[in-house]
């Protein structure tokens, strides 16, 4: 199947090598069904990145620039590895989204370092903040850099390749004992933003904390995320992309596909698998298999966007 996708000219040696390299480094699965970890992986990789028309964009998350604890003493270094990986992709993605926790402590130097590395991808990057990006005294560094043209605490929408993208902020004004929070003002804006949109428009919602309830005991969910999902109920294709939990997790519910991306900095334990959701120290050799980026491919007339999670290694 993949051979045919390359056309009558056959597959060039260079192309084969590119595809093999990609497949060798990627753990792949699509959201349209389980793809076996075999030759099928290579085929899927080609289908989604090299040979398939349509738009591909990337998601990176939780780069935590400034983090230097045992779980990863060089978070800036692994971010750079992720960017190098992006630059080596056979097909240049249209743009990138970053689902927050760009920095670890919201220091100006951390934002500067993150930008210096991420800009090496030469891609447009659409950001939403994580709770780690709003830690400076005046809560201004993130907004100065990425808040231009956004509403409220930094939410916004844009259109690309026929898809409507909505960046939401759910890390502000959190209530004791609660989860992530969107708030009434943002929800009203969201309802208004979607008003009048054709129900056949594919919608991508992205935010830092999962909009769905992953594990409330660790705060992994959004208090009023259900309200946001009500507004997109009538749409034929909805994809929700989040970060925060530093691991891949997915769920499909009707027309809505939920997906969380790996961190580029450090892994966190599976829900309930440790005493706390804190950084998980793994063997050095294993670390890069637990960090990575996600690439998302949208094909016209397909309900679900194909998501491929690629670790930095392994």
């Amino acid at each position, binding site marked *: 199947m993949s051979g045919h996708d390359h056309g009558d000219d056959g597959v060039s040696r260079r192309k084969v090598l590119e595809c093999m390299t990609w497949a060798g480094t990627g753990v792949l699965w699509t959201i349209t069904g389980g793809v076996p970890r075999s030759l099928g992986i290579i085929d899927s990789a080609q289908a989604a990145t090299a040979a398939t028309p349509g738009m591909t964009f990337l998601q990176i998350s939780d780069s935590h620039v400034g983090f230097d*604890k*045992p*779980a990863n003493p060089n978070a800036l270094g692994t971010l750079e590895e992720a960017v190098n990986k992006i630059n080596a992709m056979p097909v240049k993605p249209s743009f990138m989204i970053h689902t927050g926790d760009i920095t*670890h*402590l*919201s220091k100006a130097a951390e934002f500067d370092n993150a930008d210096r590395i991420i800009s090496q991808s030469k891609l447009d990057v659409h950001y939403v903040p994580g*709770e*780690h990006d709003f*830690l400076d*005294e005046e809560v201004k560094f993130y907004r100065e850099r990425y808040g231009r043209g956004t509403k409220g605490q930094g939410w916004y929408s844009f259109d690309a390749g026929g898809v409507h993208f909505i960046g939401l902020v759910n890390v502000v004004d*959190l*209530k*004791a*004992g*609660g*989860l992530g929070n969107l708030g009434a003002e943002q929800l009203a804006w969201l309802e208004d933003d979607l008003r009048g949109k054709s129900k056949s428009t594919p919608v991508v919602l992205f935010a830092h904390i999962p909009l769905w309830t992953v594990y*409330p*005991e*660790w*705060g992994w969910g959004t208090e009023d995320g259900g309200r946001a999902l009500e507004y997109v109920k009538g749409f034929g294709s909805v994809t929700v992309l989040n970060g925060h939990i530093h691991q891949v997790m997915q769920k499909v519910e009707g027309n809505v596909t939920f997906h969380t991306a790996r961190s580029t900095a450090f892994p966190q334990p599976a829900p309930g698998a440790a*005493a*706390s*959701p*804190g*950084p998980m120290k793994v063997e050095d050799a294993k670390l890069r298999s637990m960090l990575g980026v996600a690439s998302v491919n949208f094909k016209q007339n397909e309900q679900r966007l194909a998501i491929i999670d690629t670790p930095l290694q392994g």
Partner: protein
Amino acid sequence: MKTLNRRDFGVDFGLTLAAAILLPVTTARADDTNLEIHIDNFTFQPAELSIKVGTTVTWTNRDDIPHTVVSAGKFRSKTLDTDDKFSFTFTNAGDYKYFCSLHPHMTGMIKVE
């Protein structure tokens, strides 16, 4: 600050006695008016603490992730990185619920009598 328990007291008795003689009364009573809460594994330990008016409570973050200590309208720490501390002296009786504004599932209570 180290809190003495019975066992320590036995071992350190001589030293403690010497200190008690040499130091002014306020310092000798320090253990009654200064209490500590550790932030470990995304929990405040102890999660509930009963104290007397005038007590100073010091929170220490021992996680690899920053936390805050916030009691709405009462006190609010800066972001505490690993090993950072925040102290607050309770001058009024009452129940003080507090939480981490970054990880709101982390909650605690100080009861001041």
